[in-house]
């Protein structure tokens, strides 16, 4: 398949994730949507990497994957510690830093 088809799939997945981040109030689903956006970025990196015949894109995709794993670990730890103190997983109720 030509590269633009992959790029279109990657774009669509990214914006599905963006809609999830903007609309959902459950912090777990927001984190999942962020993961989805990162995975969409990985797909774009890999398809351009194949189009250029350059494997450096694979290395960057690898870094994105490691970054996403670290982000998931820290994000879920924050969710657990917020849930312990406030008994909620809704972003509407966690607004202590709002001015």
């Amino acid at each position, binding site marked *: *398949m*030509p*590269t*633009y088809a*992959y790029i*279109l*799939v990657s774009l*669509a*997945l*990214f*914006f*599905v*994730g*963006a*809609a*999830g981040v903007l*609309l*959902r*109030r*459950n912090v*777990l*689903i927001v984190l*999942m949507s962020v*993961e*989805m956006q990162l*995975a969409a970025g*990985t*797909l774009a990196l*890999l*398809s351009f*990497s*194949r*189009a*250029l*015949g350059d*494997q*450096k894109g*694979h*290395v960057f*995709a*690898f*870094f994105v*994957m490691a*970054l*996403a*794993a*670290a982000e*998931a*670990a*820290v994000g*879920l*730890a*924050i*969710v657990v*510690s917020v849930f312990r*103190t406030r008994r*909620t*997983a*809704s972003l*509407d109720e966690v607004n202590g830093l709002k001015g």
Partner: protein
Amino acid sequence: MNLAAHSASMAETIVFAILSAGVLVGGLLTVTRRNPVSAVMCLVLTFAALAGLFATLSAHFLAVLQILVYAGAVMVLFIFVVMMVNREESTPIARQGLVTRAAGVLAAGYVFYRVAWLVSHERTLPLLAASATPPVKDFGTVSAVGALLFADFLFPFEAISLLLLLAVVGGVMLTRHVREDHSSRVS
């Protein structure tokens, strides 16, 4: 010969269509599920189909990593936290601040429309039209990517290991139960 080539490209198109439909349907189901457990399961579908797309891009190493890291480890982590924090929502989309968020989604949708239009319009560019087999031998295999990772990108690789260590220590610090210090905990 021509017929064989044609049927091969036909099969490629069908595989691509199935995998990308899996990715997009899984993603849409993930952001619309009310129950976080079903959302995680739909996300597993998305990531598994995405690993298939990676394999069609001859990124074999990254496809395996996608299954191991995302569909395996990260999703198990999510399931654990969902089990701890599970509170089903009465309304998946809250009314509070809905206008602002809807404006945000509309803006994001417009950006998506413009970029997708641009990509489809410029699809004859050499970079976007390329679909030939990669010129490099062993493209995307473990040995090829690993050689690059440990030669040209050794420093970023070590930096990533430091980042992962920080994430592990940070995760433990954030979730640790401090029993002595009751006064600082918000009740």
